[in-house]
């Protein structure tokens, strides 16, 4: 499934008050069309996007949804451990698994080689969901996911299989992302 349609469905399942954090240049580019007042965009260059989400979740009652890719997750796996042990009930991490590095179609990540990625997340302390089949088979599953999220508390890790995509940040988009952080208010 295409990355932007997965993002669109999941963003539609979020409520107006929920905070969305999109990590990585490619995700910023893909998600900007579904921009909301409560979205924050963090470039790949900064290696603590999930931690920023933990910090926000610890200081608000609003739900915080962190979107990252498998390549980012693997590079900063200790952040996910910190997120799981924080036991923040308003923290949800969505890992978009393409199995490849962005902009490099022939460079595979080792995510698919992990014997049980969901088992690993569970052992860290997350509750784990996988929405790959749901998003692929049901035409518009945002209402269904919204209903699930209304009942389930975090820390929840969600994995979704997606197609790889390319995305480079323009200077204009970079300025927009910086401005959003400066003006963001919980």
């Amino acid at each position, binding site marked *: 499934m295409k990355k932007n349609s997965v993002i669109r469905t999941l963003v539609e399942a979020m409520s107006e008050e929920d905070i969305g954090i999109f990590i990585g240049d490619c995700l910023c580019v893909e998600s900007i069309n579904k921009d909301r007042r409560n979205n924050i965009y963090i470039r790949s260059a900064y290696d603590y996007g999930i931690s920023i*989400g933990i*910090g926000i979740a610890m200081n608000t009652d609003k739900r915080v949804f962190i979107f990252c890719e498998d390549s980012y997750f693997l590079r900063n796996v200790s952040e996910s451990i910190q997120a799981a042990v924080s036991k923040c009930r308003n923290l949800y991490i969505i890992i978009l698994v393409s199995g490849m590095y962005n902009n490099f179609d022939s460079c595979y990540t080792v995510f698919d080689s992990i014997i049980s990625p969901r088992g690993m997340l569970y052992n860290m302390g997350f509750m784990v969901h996988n929405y790959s089949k749901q998003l692929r088979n049901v035409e518009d599953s945002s209402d269904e996911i919204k209903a699930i999220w209304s009942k389930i508390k975090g820390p929840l890790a969600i994995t979704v299989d997606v197609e790889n995509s390319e995305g480079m940040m323009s200077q204009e988009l970079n300025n927009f992302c910086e401005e959003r952080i400066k003006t963001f208010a919980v």
Partner: protein
Amino acid sequence: MVKAKDLLDFLCNRLSVKFFSGVPCAGLKNLYVVMDSKIMHYVPAANEQIACGVVNGSQIAGNKSALILEPYVIDNMDFSFNIDNKLQLLIITSGCVKLKNSKNLTVLNLVDTIEKDLSKLLKQKDNAKVITIICIKEGVLI
């Protein structure tokens, strides 16, 4: 000499910094002893980068926060997120850091009394420098 309790009171009550994260700093042992969950919150982090992220997240959420780190780590850390986004960061450390005062950085050394050495912090407004480091000299904190 500065009492650790007085420093914590200064940070929590006068500067309104109530959220802390970091990794253990040997020179600040006395500060950890007096930490009180009734007036502040400390999040032990898996590593320095995570601590920095958690503190930045807390700042973004609108709560004044501080980072507690070993001085040698600070010299090698990348604060570009704070500088690019003009997000203020307060760091507390012991000993000396190699970093010097610059356009985005203030280093305050706590060597004698809180009032004398850290009074600048009380006057800081929103247009203050992005990163402020409080260096507590060895043996000062009791």
